[in-house]
């Protein structure tokens, strides 16, 4: 029930949304020089991704309809932040993505979450900038997320400390870090990532174990705690990031599931971007 009592990484539902045909051409990207996205392959990878969540991990999948008018809409994570029974509908930093939230909001409402909307016109927040560690939030202040957005998030999740982390070289906070377990932070090796780590460590009352991996992008993974499976980690494949995969393989207690995301990575997509995880297990 209460966010405080739910175990970290316990989810029952995943909200996903298919890859729009407009993604290869129109999706926003940091680096214009990236190769063209192979739409078909992107869709295959996305299906695999959803398949893992659904079949391997047993989550109920809420699949939102594909909308070609929203090229970035596959990245549902940015549209909402869900913690416990509360869902904060964001106000994405990219103007063109604001409409993505509508259907996400509807889906979350259908899941009977407490919906909080970010109405403030001056606030922006991308879900990709929000790192929830199980004990507190870190919000990256990036091009997409501003202070006001972070404040509203803090207001929505009053139980938790919300600290801000300046982001310089990356799209989102979670472009180079994520949680790989309770108290286990995966962090990339770049200067920007390490700087952010310092901030996180300084701002936190809690001590996190850290897992430093060579590639920033590989540091974005998805941790779940699934009944009968325990610690599950979806992470990048050895084909994409061989060195980083070796580091993940040292996590002996985790069920490691490499999931490729080669195409969407070209438009700054990462594993966590493609789903909103929700826990609707009935509280005891």
């Amino acid at each position, binding site marked *: *029930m*209460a*966010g*405080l*009592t739910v175990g970290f990484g316990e989810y029952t539902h995943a909200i996903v949304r298919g890859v729009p045909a407009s993604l290869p051409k129109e999706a926003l990207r940091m680096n214009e020089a990236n190769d063209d996205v192979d739409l078909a392959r992107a869709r295959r990878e996305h299906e695999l991704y959803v398949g893992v969540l659904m079949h391997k991990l047993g989550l109920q999948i809420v699949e939102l309809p594909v909308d070609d008018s929203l090229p970035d809409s596959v990245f549902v994570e940015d549209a909402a932040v869900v913690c*416990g*029974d*509360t869902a904060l509908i964001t106000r994405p930093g990219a103007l063109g993505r604001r409409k993505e939230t509508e259907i996400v909001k509807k889906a979350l409402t259908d899941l009977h979450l*407490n919906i909080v909307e970010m109405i403030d016109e001056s606030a922006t927040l991308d879900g990709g900038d929000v790192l929830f560690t199980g*004990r*507190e939030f870190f*919000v990256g202040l990036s091009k997409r997320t501003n*202070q006001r957005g*972070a*404040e509203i998030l*803090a*207001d929505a*999740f*009053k*139980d*938790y*400390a*919300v*600290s*801000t982390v300046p982001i310089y070289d990356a799209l989102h906070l979670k472009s180079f870090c994520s949680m790989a377990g309770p108290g286990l932070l995966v962090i990339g090796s770049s200067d920007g990532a390490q700087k952010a780590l310092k901030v996180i460590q*300084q*701002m*936190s*009352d809690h001590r996190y174990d850290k897992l430093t991996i060579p590639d920033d992008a590989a540091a974005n993974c998805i941790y779940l705690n699934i009944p009968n499976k325990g610690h599950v980690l979806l992470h990048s494949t050895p084909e994409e990031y061989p060195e980083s995969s070796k580091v993940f393989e040292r996590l002996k207690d985790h069920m490691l599931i490499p999931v490729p995301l080669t195409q969407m990575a070209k438009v700054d997509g990462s594993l966590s971007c493609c789903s909103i995880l929700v826990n609707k297990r009935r*509280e*005891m």
Partner: protein
Amino acid sequence: MTTEVGSETEVKKEPEQAEEQPQTQVETEQRPEQQLVDGKQEQSAHSTDLKQVEEEQNTQESPSTQQKDTTAASEQVSPAPQEGRAGVEKKEEQSGSKGIARFLPPWLKKQKSQSHVEQKKSQLKEGETSKNQIQEKEEKSPPQSPFKQQSTEKEGEEARKDTSVEEKEENLIQDHQQSKQEETKVDEKEEEKLSVSSAETQPAKEDQKEEVVEKDSDVKVEDKKEEDTIQNTEVKTDRSIQKVPKKMKTFVCKVTLLDGTEYPCELEKRAKGQVLFTKICEHLNLLEKDYFGLTYRDNADQKNWLDPAKEIKRQIRSLPWQFAFNVKFYPPDPSQLTEDITRYFLCLQLRQDIAVGRLPCSFVTHALLGSYTLQAELGDYDSEEHRHDYISEFQFAPTQTKELEDKVVELHKTHRGLTPAQAEALFLENAKKLSMYGVDLHHAKDSEGVDIMLGVCANGLLIYKDRLRINRFAWPKILKISYKRSNFYIKIRPGETEQFESTIGFKLPNHRSAKRLWKVCVEHHTFFRLISPEQPPKAKFLTLGSKFRYSGRTQAQTRQASTLIDRPAPFFERTSSKRLSRSLDGVHHFTFPRSKSEGTGTKELKQLQAPAVSATEQILQQDSSAPAVSDLKAGFTDEDGKEPGSPYKPTLSPESKSTEKLKSEMGREQEIDTQETMVNEETTKMSAVSQRSESPSVAAKSAEGGEMKTQLREKKEETIVVRDVSTSSDSESEEEAEYRPQVARKDVDQIKEEPEENEYLPVRSLTSTAHVDVKIPVEEKEELEEKIEKGGMLGEEVYCTTAEEKEEPKVNGDVSHIDTDIVTQVICCSEPPVVKTEMVTISDAFASQKSEISTKEVPIVHTETKTITYEAAEVDGTGDSEPGVLMTAQTITSESVCTTTTTQITKTVKGGVSETRIEKRIVITGDADIDHDQALAQAIKEAKEQHPDMSVTRVVVHKETELTEEGDD
């Protein structure tokens, strides 16, 4: 008692003649201090606090010891703390009154002079040991008589004070007259005591040392009547307290308890905060009380903590005697509390915090916590009994919706079977995870004038902007906490890659709020952070500090004490929280107002960081009698007769002094003389002291258990200062220099206050400390002075936090504890002419307090080392320091029986010549069982061997007796 009647005349007459001289002297000396004491307790010298703190410590400990005994015993115990308090009070009053004597009407004055007389008499009557027996008799005599004496004495004092200070003369006068007869008795009795003790040794050099004397006397008489004598003073105060209400002026104050009820409590007018707090805890049947405290609201409706060590009246001033019992230190893990009743009170506090919005929660958390509250208060959900409206009597959130109530009920149903204690434990398990749990918020502005909130919590200082945490400084990162007027500063330990410490300043709405924040920080740091039982017990220095320090037990200590709680779980009735919700007036939402403070950001940081050091030089040159810094305790009397109390004093230049409005000008020169002679005396009395050290600690003997022993232990300490000045650094002092003492890291390390066998000795660290923050620009001094005189609390205080525990292992013989990157150095000085005078003003507060009446005997050399610690400013690494700037300074401290502190100071004098001075301080510390003479000789020998050129500049013998007699009975 009848025998005493005859002596009355004797006492009265003799005093007036013989006493005259001494008295004036005393008066002059005490003058300056007097003002401080009366006018502004806040500014009063450290010493006061030290003493009080110690007392408090003792008092607080007593319960725990008692707890060992059965519950029955615990009831007896409770009075003990009060006694302790009362004792202190009394002493203070007396001391305070002395200086005022000249303004008093003759009839009032008499008493005072008597006290002096007594002392004198003791000298005169040396050899009159025969009175010993009489004294004993008296002590044995029915409880009432001692009590009476005491109380009358007290009244007398009060009367004096009131007349001089303020109101209500008449009542007191009446009282006084009534008690006059009894007073004479008292005097006589005291006289006798004195004579007894005096027989043994030379007269005490200072009349003011009564307190010490008293103790000594106890020791001596001990042989015969161990118990009675030892506890003599305490017993008396004890009784006096019990009976006080009849004769003393009392006040009724109201304390709002956590369940919303109001508890009226009658208090003696001059009672200290601790008295009230103890009463409340007794009323609540609460043993783990260190987490709690009393608050009052000031005129600005700000919540202030009642300082247990200070008189209530002085703290609240004209405010109504209305207090609230609150949690002061939120235990990070409530499950570690020993008793359910403690958790219950914590729950009540948290419910209140939640209801008023101080502890923000999400909807679900409100509902969950609310449901545990229902379970705890009402038991299992019962559909019959609990109709839908039962819930609206409770307040679960600042704004309570039907939806929330429904959710609470829904959850309540799921808690079936939980006992109240279990439900509360679950409540706490959830509440403790809330991010604002235990965070004490203060409005402030950052250096750019942006509104922020500073949150003090168990782990450190949190900085919020709106609801966002924008920074956090864990205690280990903070080297120093200070405030100056309305600015609040923290000095941050350099990070891995940084070379220098940085200071961050915040602007608080006003001076009071800055000080309040500072105090809260000091207290939280001490309570949560100072837990290092593994530290060597002897290493306690606190080389800086304001007079304020947290005086209670630390969390570690209270936990340890809690393990001794051995009583059946006390029964207590849980009161419905509905009452609570009603009693709350005004909802304080967790808001971050955007504009509250005036003025803009603090930009003085740079100034602070790079203070002109010239002032330092002045100080440097004046060497210090090595302060027997460590282990100083209650019996600490000032050898110099002065105590550097308020931080800024030392900076005063001679001129500014003259402008001071403090009155004791003439007294000063006298004082200086006195000081010098005293030093001599000190040395000569060495032998006496060492003798003394052989007398086993009385307390220990009488103590029943190990615990008691530590409490009652008598301490002795000798200090040798060996100094070698290769270049005289005199004459560089520049008055206009702005100068900032910083505490070197080393010293910071030493600040640690470690529990010794369950004993909390926060005070010792305070001793040395004239915590001087001297960086006030000259122009400001006068201003400050004025403020002080007005009784306002002002000034600048600094608190250095201890370094990370791992970084400060102090192993015996570990000499390599050097940090090169630390340039700041602490230097202690006590003798320099200039400084001396300045010190005068401050120090007396201390001295006067020490002068207790109880003068049972006099013999020993009780010397007190006053120390002012100056710290040179840090040098920037570039090395282009200004002339006269301190370049390097390092301290090496090794420890065994002797603590040797070698201070090497290199500085550049004008002209680019650098000079180095090595100052070596050897502190021999030990209990009575050490042969101090030998240790001293050995230490000097060794020092000479190492540095043939060195000269011994000073030998200070410092003996400490703990003020713990009240411990048990």
